[in-house]
């Protein structure tokens, strides 16, 4: 069967593009080598936290700062999209999450970044956060009680409280016995979250919290408040404890990221979109044509236990990420390449050019700023700016012109370019093949 759109990559960008295209009536399939990078994320939507070369000063309102971004990063996808399109895309994400019963919201001062505590108690500029993280907003004044569990490897309440105090926020740490949640000797945040899907377990946690909580405090917990029954668990706990509760993302694996992945995948399943995990794209085919450029892709092949499996598609969207997401690979000599189509990259190809001398250079590191150069339709282009294939599109972390970790723009880029690229695809007139 030939699908209208084959999406490669099951991170936020790939899944959002699939949602957008499926809602437009396209037959869509998603393939991915493994689970996507959302599993490593904080589950928030970071749009623009820092402008290039201004590392010490967080951005107050991302959409209002695009003109400043344009002066240093003229090729940034946001600059290409403009603030209106970016705003629309983000709003569509928030609306979708509402429908998925995993609501996300931003600052009460519309358009401004929230400031949320990170896993080590630093302030993180975030545009949209899941409901469970909102009460952690550092612009609020209630003192914070950061509660951890003895033996939980991936969450450090004392460190978080100390760092928040140094930033001028009132915060203290407390520990509860892990036995409130689990009788396991060895556990991770996922197992704890599954245990808290059970109301009885939430009740025990509430009883424990009431023991340590002082009046007027809000409670910061590791992000473990349920996987399947998260929304109910959060509401129930707030009610039982009678104090604002917020989750702080832990070290990976990320429960908030898994909740979002699962919600998006289930939505896609309901729309008849298959999301196939464990399928690594290794090859592609092009249509034989007397006109050499641009070429048309006919299929992508994935590795199986024996012969490659061919996925035929009218359009192909590459959402496999960059170096972090696995869309790019590199060797010890400094060569960096895109793994499926070997698309041209703007990334420096000599090892000594990857990094500036200073690790924390405010200008960032060149190796993380490179990516696939695209035209305004999100099609990858040759060095001379010509599209390489007439039915290949790129979105998300693979795009050139961003430095997503440093800018704190990973999710904003993923969502906005996914929606923009999918719109380009369904605006292509249907060909008769």
């Amino acid at each position, binding site marked *: *069967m030939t699908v209208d759109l084959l999406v490669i990559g099951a991170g936020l960008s790939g899944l959002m593009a699939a949602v957008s295209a499926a809602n437009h009536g396209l037959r869509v399939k998603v393939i*991915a*080598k*493994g*689970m*996507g*990078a959302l*599993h*490593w994320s904080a589950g928030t939507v970071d749009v623009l936290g820092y402008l290039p070369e201004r590392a010490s000063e967080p951005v107050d309102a991302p959409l209002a700062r695009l003109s400043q971004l344009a002066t240093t990063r003229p090729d940034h996808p946001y600059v290409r999209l403009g603030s209106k399109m970016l705003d629309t895309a983000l709003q569509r994400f928030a609306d979708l999450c509402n429908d998925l019963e995993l609501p996300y919201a931003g600052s009460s001062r519309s358009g401004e970044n929230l400031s949320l505590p990170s896993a080590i108690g630093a302030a993180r500029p975030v545009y949209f956060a899941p409901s469970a993280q909102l009460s952690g907003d550092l612009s609020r004044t209630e003192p914070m009680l950061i509660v951890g569990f003895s033996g939980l490897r991936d969450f450090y309440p004392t460190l978080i409280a100390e760092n928040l105090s140094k930033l001028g926020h009132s915060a203290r740490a407390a520990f509860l016995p892990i036995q409130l949640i689990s009788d*396991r*000797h*060895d556990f*991770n945040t*996922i*197992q704890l979250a*599954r245990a808290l899907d059970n109301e009885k377990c939430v009740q025990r946690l509430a009883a424990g919290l009431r023991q340590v909580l002082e009046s007027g405090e809000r409670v910061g917990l590791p992000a473990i408040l349920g996987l399947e029954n998260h929304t109910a668990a959060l509401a129930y706990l707030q009610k039982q404890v009678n104090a604002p509760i917020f989750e702080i993302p832990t070290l*990976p*694996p990320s429960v908030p990221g*898994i909740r979002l992945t699962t919600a998006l995948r289930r939505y896609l399943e309901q729309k008849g979109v*298959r999301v*196939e*995990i*464990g*399928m*690594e794209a290794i090859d592609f085919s092009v249509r034989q044509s007397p006109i050499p450029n641009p070429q048309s892709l006919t299929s992508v092949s*994935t*590795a*199986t*236990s*024996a*012969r490659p*499996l061919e996925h035929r598609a009218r359009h192909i969207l590459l959402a496999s990420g960059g170096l972090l*997401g*696995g869309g790019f690979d590199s060797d010890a000599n400094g060569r960096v390449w895109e793994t499926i189509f070997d698309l041209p990259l703007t990334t420096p190809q000599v090892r000594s050019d990857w990094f500036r001398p200073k690790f924390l250079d405010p200008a960032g590191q060149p190796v993380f700023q490179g990516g696939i150069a695209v035209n305004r339709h999100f099609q990858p282009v040759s060095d001379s700016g010509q599209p390489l294939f007439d039915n290949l599109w790129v979105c998300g972390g693979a795009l050139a012109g961003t430095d997503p970790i440093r800018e704190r723009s990973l999710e904003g880029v993923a969502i906005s370019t996914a929606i923009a690229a999918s719109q380009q695809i369904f605006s292509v007139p249907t060909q008769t093949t």
Partner: protein
Amino acid sequence: MFTESWLSVGPSLDECIKCNICTSYCPVSAVTDRFPGPKYAGPQAQRFRENGQVQTPDDSVDYCSGCRVCNEVCPTGVKIAEMNARARAQIASDKGIPIRNRLLGRNELLGKVGSIAPSLANFGLHNPASRVLAEKVVGIAREAPLPRWSRDGTFGAWMKRTANRRLKSEKKVVYFHGCATMYYEPYIGRAAVAVLEHNGYEVIVPSQNCCGLPMLSNGEFGAARHYHENNIRKLGDYVDAGYDIVGTSTSCTLTLKEEAPDLLDMHEGGAHELKMAVWDIFEWLRERLELGELSIDFARLDMVLPYHAPCQGRAHRVGKPALQIMALIPELDVRESRARCCGIAGTYGYKVEKYQIAMDVGEELISYVREQGARVEMTACDSETCRWQLEHGSGHPSRHPIEILAAAYGLYDLEHRLLI
């Protein structure tokens, strides 16, 4: 000392970025402290397990069920399940193999012996007293869903008996039945033959051996190598003649394609050619469908059917072809399970110390079946031990999708498992 090289799985170790996605999805470490999770028992411990090392791998790796969910979700392509299988082989090589594990590895021998007098064998194995004895003496859990020997003869005997009624055709395909179809569930083979013949193919069933998977799972690599060599020899002529080899057991076909060559470092002398000739039967039928060659004259099957794609089936990385084809059957309401694993993982859940773990892992699937409501009369799964576990846990009979397909062609009675 364990002597197999780590070549085919070793380099993937360096791809591990310690992201813990494998641990998040591991169905075993989710229910027990005995297995610390794929990242710890796999790539992390692997750093200390090079050839020539003094220490035997930590016993916790024996609690990996080998379901391969870790490989499926790993974003960087680390061959975690293979690392664990090799570590188990090293334990077996250093410490010896318990008699129980030797027994469980010998599907084919047990099948043959029991088939001499199946009623007697069934009574001998399945009466409560012998199950208690088997648990106490050998360590096979008394409640574990062991199969029963076929009382109306083996699949091989049926093929011989019906030889003059079998379709002759220019189009030919080789059938790899595996031990379970041969000795316990010959009706799966009969359904497969019926489906293949209905599509115009003459079915060739050459002499064949156990694929060796039970031995690979229990760390008996030497014996597994012997079996794989035999299969290469016995199937080689058909491979050379260009025939496709289809199998109904997703784990047997996975072993012939990938597990045996990778774990045993057997890529030459016909191993690669065999790998490339083997298909899961639904993978092969889907190929016929894509080419417009599959007969789709299905009768309606008005039922709700929870379907679980087994771990070893998903490990083929060909999607869920049985699901795709069953979706074409009118009125059949196939419900796709999202469960990671049924828990049994071949012989894992038979072992007394692992039985409860297997049941706890399987709860995800069993509760899924329960949630599908009162209209559910049976379930479907491509893998034999998973079907037995599904029946054990849910109380509903379980069928192979090939039986469902045979029934939709009007060739098969699903309830009594008989060709019509």
